[in-house]
Each structure stands twice: as C-alpha cells, then as structure tokens.
C-alpha cells in the first residue's frame, strides 16, 4: 500500500524523531529509503512503477520534505499533489493542504484521481466542504477504509462524513501484508499506530469532529503516557500544545477535561496570506503594556529595538513553518511562545473555574510544532517559564507530535503497549522539575538563605547532598529512565508539594535532561531593570545550553 506522509511540521518532525533513534535506514517491501538517498527514492516513488518493478512505493516522512516544500511553499503547485494522488494510495498531509492554493474544485479533482486510504489534513473551511464531498464519494464507491477522526477547535458539529466503522476494513490479506511492510518501514511509534489500527491514519493534525474529540484524545494520550489513573481528584495533567503564535491547553481536573485556546491572530489561519490585521495583533504580540511578563521583549536575553522585534515576529508568523537557524531567531520564537502562554493563561483565568486556573498539575505534557526539534535545554527553559510547575512535576515532551494520534487509539480501546519491550517512547520524559509551591525572589536584594536540603541518590553513584538557594535554575544530570531517590527537607515556610516545611521523599524516573531544580520564584517575576533582567536571562540561557551541548 503506497503511502505518502507529509506536512508542514510533521515532515521534519517525524524525520528528526526517527533520526534520533537511528532508524533512518529502513528497508520496506517497496522502495528503500536510506540516508542520503531520499531524492532517488522520491524520483522512483513518483512513478507508479518504480525502477525495482515492484510498483509499490513507501514514501517516508523524510521524502515528505520535498512534498512539503512543494505543497506548503508553492501555493499554486497543485500538480504535485495530483501526481501524488495518481501514484500513491494514500495522501496524508498536515498543514500542507491548508496552506496550498487548492480550491474546492482542485480538491475534488484530487480526491477523484484514485482510491485513497485516508486523508490527513487541517483543511480550511472551503476545502473541508470539498473534502467532505470527496470522502463521501470514496466511501460510496467502497474505497475509503477507516479513518480516525480528530477534531479542531473550528469544527462545531460532529463529523458525519468520516467515521470509523466495523464494516469498513482492510479488504484482504494482500493489504495486510502491505501494511506489515509499511510498519517495518516506518518504525515505532508510527509502526505501533499501524499495527494496532491498520488503516487508521491520523497523527496529529486537525480532523473533522466535535470539539471535544481532539481534546479527549490529547488527554487520553496524556493519561496513558504519564501513567495516571482516571478519577483522581485535583488536576492530573496539563497538556500544552504550542504552535507558532498559538497555544492550546488541555487540563484534566477532577476527572473532567478542559480546553483553552489562544492565538495571536485571533483565530487559527495557517494560510500564507494572513488576514491583516484584525485588531488583536498589536496587544497580543505583546510588545506593549501587557501584564505579567506577557511581552516578547521581556524574555529576550539581548536588547532588541521594539519596532524591529515586532516586524521580526510578524514576519515569522506570516511563514510559521520555518526552522530557526540562528540563536536570535530561536530565542525570539521562544520569547513569543512565553508571551503567548502567559497571555493565554491571563485570558483563560477569566473564563475557567478558579479551581482550574489556580490548579497545580501533577504532570505536564508539551507538544506542538514549536517544541518539535531544536535545543531541548532551551525548550525546557521555555516550559519552565511558561508553565511554572511547582512541587515535583514530571515534564513530558512529545517531539513527534503523536499525542492526538495515540490518544485516538486509546479512545478506540486500543492498547498503546509497545510490541517490543524496549521500543523507544514516543512521548519521553524530558525532566522532573522540583520547585517550591510559592516563593518570592528579590532580584534587587538577593538573599542566599537555604530553601531546602536536597538528598539525591542515583543508582550506582554517590549520593548528592546540597542546599537549594533562591534565584537559581539548577540541573542535575542523570541517565534517562533510571530511578532516582529524592529527599527534600524544606526549611520552615517552604512547600515542595508535601506541605509547608514537610519532607518530600520518593522515587522518580530521570528524564532525558535529568532533574531540574527551579527556585527562581513562583510566580516567576523578572527584574524590572532591563540590564538586570538581561543578565539573568543570559545566565539561565547558559545553564540550559549546558544541558544539551
């Protein structure tokens, strides 16, 4: 079964994910996609009958990069999508379709080209209408098989067009064999998805369906991966879905799920031509007069002229699917993300029950295009400044953006247990953050008193005993996955999750970046003076850069 996976973010995210696990060289039943040969693979794959004569093409996310470039950045290039449809069985596009110039007619033409197994997209509303019609045609003809639905915030009504049904299944043994080949080619976690739900093609982008659907999937996946039991009191999981200029938070509180979305453009518009402007940009980009550190400039470890910065931010938001190649770009994007998360929290506080707005999550999961790739130390810094975890909080990172897809499987009653015992975790633990529940820091008059005595025992190493001092961001390296014994003895008046002055003791799994002790204050408030603030930010940047050299 030929397959094309692509998408503006998904392509390179998946590539990176697989490269990290040295799974780049894969042998499928059709084309072999190996490092350095993607262009050759692509050239062969575009033709129905490849040079190897098999006529079966497995196009890897790696190759999707080229389609990404063509589809996302050339809004008029309909031909490549059409060619893909002619030659391949499935077209899975991410934001690509939303950003192409495909009109309704084009899309119908495209869907009419040949049977497909799933379309995976975040379409615009007009595209959606055409998509609906096309999918209905496919289903009537008995072509479309099974599609997991995943909703976006924009969709208000339940999907009537895409429904997984028991009667729609793979037609026979031949297809199953091809799926097996596909699994082998794609590797975990995609392999897992296909193994457990052959024909289910949904990874992370928007789908048609009720609003709760995607949120439920996100939360279900978060539950599954963080090992929490449902029905617990309090806030169990907080998921941050970070995209350029936007954040969506999903919260499980007392067994109920809540979703809050915020976008600097006022709505999600992944198009290349942005609506200019609708009045929310200037305050939302946050360069002036926003409360509580929700300004971009506040979080930059260098001086930037306001107007230049604003132009840079808007230019970035005009073409959000890019990768920051310089530190300046990267830090501006991270600063924008902080500003957006904080502003979102400010907005959400007015609309959510107070118990949720003030709740302390026991787990944090971070996903989205902004955290897919890049320096993980700096991403961790972003999470710490944005989410401000308190107590002892594990932080999970979803680098491949698989959370919604995995959640869809959970909701469908499928197990996420890996087939192989040592399969890499799709949503790995990044770190566990230890921070006081409430703490004020005076940057003008720093005090060097102790907040707590820490005793950390990593298996096979000497115990580390040290005092926690205020105003620091300290990382304790440990091998990922190892169980770390931690004992925290706070001084009177400080609470690290067990109560004021009470000892916290327990065993924690170490994340990729070990443990992090954050005593920079809760809530985190930066110095008002620019030079002092920039100095601090530079210190913290140096600290997090050391985490991943």
């Amino acid at each position: 079964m030929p397959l094309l996976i692509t998408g503006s973010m998904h392509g390179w995210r998946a590539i990176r994910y697989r490269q990290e696990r040295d799974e780049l060289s894969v042998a499928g039943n059709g084309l072999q996609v190996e490092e350095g040969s993607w262009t050759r693979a692509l050239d062969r794959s575009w033709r129905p009958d490849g040079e190897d004569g098999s006529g079966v093409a497995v196009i890897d996310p790696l190759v999707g990069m080229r389609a990404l470039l063509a589809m996302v950045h050339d809004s008029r290039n309909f031909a490549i999508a059409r060619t893909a449809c002619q030659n391949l069985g499935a077209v899975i596009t991410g934001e690509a379709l939303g950003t192409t110039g495909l009109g309704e007619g084009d899309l119908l033409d495209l869907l009419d080209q040949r049977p497909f197994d799933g379309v995976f997209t975040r379409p615009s509303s007009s595209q959606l209408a055409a998509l609906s019609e096309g999918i209905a045609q496919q289903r009537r003809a008995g072509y479309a098989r099974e599609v997991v639905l995943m909703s976006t915030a924009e969709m208000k009504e339940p999907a009537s067009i895409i429904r997984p049904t028991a009667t729609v299944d793979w037609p026979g043994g031949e297809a199953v064999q091809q799926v097996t080949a596909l699994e082998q080619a794609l590797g975990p976690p995609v392999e897992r998805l296909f193994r457990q739900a052959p024909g289910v093609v949904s990874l992370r982008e928007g789908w048609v369906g009720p609003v709760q659907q995607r949120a439920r999937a996100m939360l279900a996946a978060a539950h599954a991966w963080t090992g929490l039991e449902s029905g617990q009191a309090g806030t169990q999981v907080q998921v941050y879905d970070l995209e350029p200029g936007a954040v969506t938070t999903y919260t499980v509180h007392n067994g109920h799920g809540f979703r809050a979305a915020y976008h600097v453009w006022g709505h999600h518009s992944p198009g290349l031509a942005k609506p200019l402007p609708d009045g929310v940009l200037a305050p939302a980009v946050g360069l002036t007069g926003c409360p509580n550190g929700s300004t971009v400039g506040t979080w930059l470890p260098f001086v930037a002229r306001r107007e230049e910065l604003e132009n840079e931010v808007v230019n970035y938001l005009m073409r959000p699917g890019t990768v920051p190649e310089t530190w300046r770009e990267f830090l501006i994007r991270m600063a924008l993300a902080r500003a957006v998360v904080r502003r979102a929290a400010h907005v959400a506080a007015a609309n959510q029950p107070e118990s949720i707005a003030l709740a302390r999550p026991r787990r944090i999961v971070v996903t989205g295009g902004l955290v897919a790739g890049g320096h993980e130390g700096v991403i961790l810094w972003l999470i710490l400044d944005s989410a401000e975890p308190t107590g002892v909080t594990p932080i999970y990172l979803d680098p491949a953006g698989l959370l919604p897809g995995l959640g869809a499987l959970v909701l469908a009653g499928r197990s996420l247990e890996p087939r192989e015992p040592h399969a890499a975790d799709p949503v790995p633990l990044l770190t566990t953050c230890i921070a006081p529940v409430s703490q004020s820091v005076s940057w003008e008059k720093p005090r060097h008193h102790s907040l707590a005595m820490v005793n950390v025992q990593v298996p096979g190493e000497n115990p580390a005993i040290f005092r926690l001092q205020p105003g620091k961001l300290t990382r304790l390296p440990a091998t990922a996955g190892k169980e770390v014994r931690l004992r925290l003895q706070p001084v009177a008046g400080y609470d690290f999750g067990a109560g004021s002055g009470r000892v916290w003791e327990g065993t924690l799994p170490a994340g990729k970046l070990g443990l992090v002790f954050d005593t920079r204050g809760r809530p985190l408030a930066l110095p008002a003076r620019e030079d002092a603030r920039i100095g601090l930010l530079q210190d913290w940047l140096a600290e997090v850069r050391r985490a991943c050299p």
Partner: protein
Amino acid sequence: MRENHSAVLRNISYRCVRQLLPGSRVLVEEGARVEGGTPIASGVGRVHRVLLPAELHGFTGFRKRPGDSVKAGETLAVLTYQMGFGLAEYVCPVDGVIEAILDRAMVIRDHAASWLAGLPGVVSRVIPDREIEITATGHLIPGWAGSGPAVGGPACLVGELYTPAGIDRALGPQVQGAVVVSLTYTAGRALELAARYGAAALVCASLSYAELAAFAARSGRALPFSLVVLEAFGSSALDPGVREVLEAVRGQELYVDGGRPGEERPVVFVPGERGDDLPSSGLYPGCRVRVLAGAYSGRHGEVWSLPEAVQTTETGYRVLTVDVRLSDGSTVQVAGCNLEITGYSLPAGRASCSTKTS
C-alpha cells in the same frame, strides 16, 4: 543571470481565478477575450449579519423590517439599558436589503455586484456558481503579505514614500482608482493618503507592521484598499529584478491580489504580450526561492543542489539543507523547510542550472 535569481516570473501564463457566489450569473463564455474592465459575472449580493445581543431578544426597538432597503450607516436597531441612560445603536454595514430578522441577528443582503475581469486575458474555465478562471500572460511577482480583494488599475509609480514631504508630493487626487507602486520602504502616512485619495491598491517593498496595525485600527477591520507587501515587514529593500519590472510599468494596467487567508498568496501581475506555461513540480535545482529564516532571511536565490544528508543547525534542529545560489552569486546552505518557492525556471533556464559549478 539576474533573471534566474529574481523573484519575478517573466513572460508566464498566469491563471487568475475569480471566485463567484452561488447564484451569480456568468456573463462570459470559455474562450472569450476580456479586458481588465470587462464584466464577467453579476452577483446576487452578499449576505451580511449584524449580531445583536441576547438582551435584544423580543425587544421591539428594531428600526427596519424584512424587505426594507437600507444604506450603510443607517440605524437597524436600538437598545436602551441602565434604565434609559445607556443607548446602543446597531447600524447597517452595507447598502442592501433586510432579508430577515433572527433571534440574535439581522440578515442583510447587499446590492448585487458585478465581477470585472481585472486583467486582460482569455476566459479559460467557467464553473458556474464557483469560479471563472482567466488566463493572462505577463510577469508575475509573488508578494510576502497582502490584504484585500483582487483589483486592477493603472499603475501609479511613485518615488520614495518614507518622508512626509515625499509622501505629500507623491500622493494626491491623481491616485484615485490607481495602483500605487512604491519601490521602497513605505511609511504609515502613505497608507493614510492612499486611503484618503481613493487608491485601488498599494504595492510596496516593505512596511512597518506597527504602522500598518495602527492604520488598520483607525480604518476598521478591513483596509480601504488592497495591499501587497513584496519583501517583508520592516525595511527590506526591493529585489533588483522586481524593481526592474516595476519601474517599467508606469501607466500600464496592473493586477493586484491581496490573497486569501489560507489559500492564495498575494501577487502583483504585470500583463504582457508573451507567456509560457510554467513547469510545475516540486523543489529542483534551478527553481527560485526566497529564504524565510536564518542568516540569509529575506534573500532571493535559486536552488543549486538538493540535499544529500542531514545537518544540525546551531539551534539543535536536524534539517535537510539545500544549496542556494543567492542573487549576489554566492552559494549558501539553507534548511530546506526555510525556503519558499517563488517560481520555476522555464525549461531553458532549468537546463542551464542543472550542474553545480562552484
């Protein structure tokens, strides 16, 4: 060689799609030759909704009934609150007819509008109720950002638009209905004057986003003219190839499309005599690109060779890098996902760029 690196697509065949509303009447047939001002369809009018607050439910302070003709600015409903001390008026946004009064909204259908071709060409496809495609020949300039519908008009080439004196000198009543083309960074005051004197569109090299936002906030949600920013927000200079084309368009008809969110990029089209079909495929050596991020952000060039291996950026991203030949002749490596295809070389140009020589 400049031509190969420039963002301009010279002498191409461009398909412009004019989208129609359901129920509109098509006035042209496939194969018909049209000029910029040729009406191609007449519409049934667009529906507008004026949302009313929940308190108005059952309130009888409506000033209009279904079937009434209304003009833009006329009062539709009045709401009093705080024991009569508060007064809110809901006014009509367009000239049209009240079609219905719903629980929470008034529905107004504006007067039927005609669609003009916008640019000279041949009607190549007609899909009733959906779109009319016109094929034209000339030079296409892809923009960076835009706003507003597709418009056509005579080009009014102005000099610099960044000093108050220069702006006052350049923009006056003569720009009414014209496409103002500024080849430089453009200051916010130019937006004010272009709106005041009724320009159909403004095309500029670059613009400060803060000034645009301030202007838009003053003028309401929609800009009063179509806008295309060619390079970027900020003070980017115009690509030399684009400058060369635009300098030659004084008085000529220009077609400007501000783009549609999520669908089309903004473009400026200069109608010409000759046009060839573009090769249409993905990224390949020879296709023209704009660098979107990184050290060479904003520069134009052409793809020199496709990646063979993955590289790690200093910020930790693992990317496939593409060799790009910039307009100054240097060859640099850029992450593939940081490239925007601005055009394809025509077959001859493509052949000449197929071998990397540096």
